[in-house]
């Protein structure tokens, strides 16, 4: 295996010595198989034993070594040095985002775990079964969705890179909502769909669909899809919320005219809050940007309406 050298720029922070974090560069001889974790271990053992990071299984399943590598949260034991170097040149290594740093690449995951706890993350099982030796009957098909969601290793990468979480500390976050959905979709959970009812207050509608939780998850859990599915349940169970009103207004607009009419969408979602934007709306009107609240339906609107009817029938079955 041919070797070459790679440059690592690592964010260091020792609370006993440093006032604030600073970058330090290291050079490491690498081969095509080396992972970032291998490189960090190498640096720690050969160059600077104070380099601090979490790690355990080195095979992508325990979740200990999640950190930002070239600005995106990944498992260090799976990030291949050569790939990172080829793509980005230097390899930038920093602790996860949205969590205060403890030391070097170790982030304080307290907020992450607290958000998980908010969701009552355990199966509410039928305790009358205690001691019995009969299992619940369940098919592989019935537990397919829960199974995929249960692949989560709680590494924190999705939480780190969640754009909404940066600005909205009430947002429960992708990992937690995905875990809640894991129980919602488990036929054995006695709470089941009832769990959806508390979610509006936990920021169910704060997810902005940035899809980072999908792209950064090392286990392909796709939390954003779980959030969308929870929103479907919330909307269809008539949980009142601005988010649900938004969905309803959108559907109505498309059913009636085939297009999204921003004016009616705005009014129906925001209601009297529209007054807050009165200045902006007037300015838009003067520039010819304000859409008419009375749109003309598109040609063949009947086809669109027919599809709405078909989908409704299927849903109601």
């Amino acid at each position, binding site marked *: 295996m041919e070797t070459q050298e790679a440059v690592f720029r690592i964010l260091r922070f020792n609370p006993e010595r440093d006032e604030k974090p600073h970058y330090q560069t290291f050079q490491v001889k690498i081969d095509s198989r080396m992972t970032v974790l291998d490189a960090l271990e190498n640096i720690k053992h050969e160059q600077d034993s104070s380099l601090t990071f979490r790690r*355990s299984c080195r095979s992508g399943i*325990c979740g200990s070594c999640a950190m930002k590598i070239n600005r995106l949260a990944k498992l260090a034991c799976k990030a291949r040095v050569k790939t990172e170097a080829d793509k980005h040149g230097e390899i930038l290594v920093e602790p996860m985002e949205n969590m205060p740093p403890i*030391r070097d690449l170790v982030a304080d995951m307290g907020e992450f775990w607290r958000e998980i706890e908010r969701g009552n993350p355990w*199966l509410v*099982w039928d305790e009358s079964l205690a001691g019995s030796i009969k*299992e*619940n009957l369940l098919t*592989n098909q019935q537990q397919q969705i829960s199974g995929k969601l249960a692949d989560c290793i709680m590494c924190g990468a999705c939480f780190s890179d969640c754009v909404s979480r940066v600005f909205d500390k009430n947002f429960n976050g992708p990992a937690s909502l995905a875990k809640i959905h894991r129980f919602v979709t488990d036929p054995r959970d006695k709470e089941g769909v009832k769990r959806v009812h508390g979610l509006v207050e936990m920021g169910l509608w704060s997810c902005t669909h940035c899809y980072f939780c999908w792209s950064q998850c090392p286990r392909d859990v796709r939390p954003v899809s779980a959030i969308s599915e929870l929103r479907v349940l919330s909307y269809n169970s008539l949980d009142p919320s601005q988010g649900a009103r938004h969905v309803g207004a959108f559907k109505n607009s498309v059913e009636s005219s085939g297009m999204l009419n921003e004016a009616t969408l705005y009014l129906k979602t925001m209601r009297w809050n529209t007054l807050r934007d009165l200045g902006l709306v007037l300015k838009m009107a003067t520039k010819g940007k304000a859409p008419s609240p009375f749109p003309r339906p598109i040609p063949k609107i009947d086809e669109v309406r027919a599809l709405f009817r078909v989908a409704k029938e299927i849903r109601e079955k």
Partner: protein
Amino acid sequence: MIKHDIVIVGAGLAGLRAAIEAKQKSADVAVLSKLHPVRSHSDQAQGGINASLGEDDSWEKHTFDTVKGSDYLADQDAVEIMCKDAPRAIIELEHWGTLFNRTESGRLAQRPFGGAGFPRTCFAADKTGHVLQTTIYEQIRKNDVQIYEEWFATALVVEDNVCKGLTALDILTGEVYAVQAKAIILATGGAGQVYSKTTNSLTTTGDGIAMAYNAGLPIEDMEFVQFHPTTLYDSNILISEGARSEGGYLVNALGERFMKKYAPDKMELAPRDIVSRSIETEIREGRGFEGSYMHLDLRHLGEAKINERLPTIRELAIYFAGVDPVKEPIPIQPAQHYTMGGVPTNLNSATSVKGLYAAGECACVSVHGANRLGGNSLLETVVFGKRAGAKAAEHVKEVSVVTFPETALKEEQKRIEALLNRKDGEKASEIKKALGTTMFDKVGIFRHKRELEIAKRNVATLQRQFQNVCIMDSSRKFNTSLIETLEVGFALDLAEVVIAGALARKESRGAHYRIDYPKRDDAKWLKHTLAVRTAEGPKLSYKPATITRFQPEARGY
């Protein structure tokens, strides 16, 4: 000083199962773990967990397979308990939410595992450990069990054969605390990191077993080290036995399914010690690839089956070996995997010290004897974890008060302080590397007096070097160099015991194979090794294996 009635060290399956039991029996219980619970090594188990659920199966058959698999060294009364309790233990896990694979009719699916006469291994694809650990951690949160997360236990405190508690380091702050407890349950797992090639995580360093040894307890059967036959070439990441239960073949460089020569009946599903020795023999006799590995061929299973039953190992092979098992055979070689030995306990997980219990891989009941069957380790954790929790809860009701000796804390604080302040000396990482290589090369699958003696001398040298180890990072907060150094210390202690046991045992049984004593010798050696720490090294004594139903027979597959 931290005070609890029960403190459990280790947050894997055994530790957490014990905690739930103790909590439900209203004990004041806390779990202490150097990792966040979900990072524990139990999470990495793949293949499955055994129970005789099938109509044509029985706990007696399960017991027999386990006893035979152990090469007749297992204590049969303990095995009976484990196999009898298995169905209840596993169904309980299902009730708690484990997502096991199912049959068409919705019942728990089971697959055949090595050395089993019946398909009795329940599984969740090939990530059974992850699924179980996740489920049990969820129930821990439901029961609101207190956890000291990222706390490193440094020493057990035992006085007049009574357990008083332990000293532990809060990794976050670097402070060393006295933890007073009426009962301590050790659930710290195995000691794979004693070996250079191991499937075990970097944190599986035998802490609990070493602490017990250092506190004066005997430790049992340490020479019995399981080498898993199929680990990825080079990284030694585990490739589950499940791959073989689903029908995978082991093939040498000549294209032969060589297991025919060594276990014509069970073939690839012979017990692990036999398969590992077979692979190693094939390699030594020149029929390996690049002189190092064999092929595990899954191509004939087809993509659909591999994706359904073995998705994890497919991903691992692609990612860490650059090979897609759907299209190519996987390069595999044996590596250390499981520690059959550990802290000796009775049938209720109690050790010889009052108030001290042990469960899971760090304990030696012994249910696995000289070799463990796949699927029995996950079973052991929940069966004996529960028993440990129950017994400890009972015990603390009877004990009134326990006083932690202040000197124990002061001494430990001084020791750590001295370590941190040393400015110059040996590197722990170098010592660890040398230790691992010596152990794998000389105390591995095939052993010989000559090599064992060299290993003994090497380890003695390394222990002397370790007296002068320097951490080169004197920070207190989150000092992982300190933790890694303490772990190397534990590993050195245990390595010495493994070698002593292996040297003394002049026979071959289960996973312990002596080229110079290739036969099993029941007349002289149907007994467990016990090692106690002395200034001159481990002092060995023996106790007979408990036999109830099955008299030892020749072990062929």
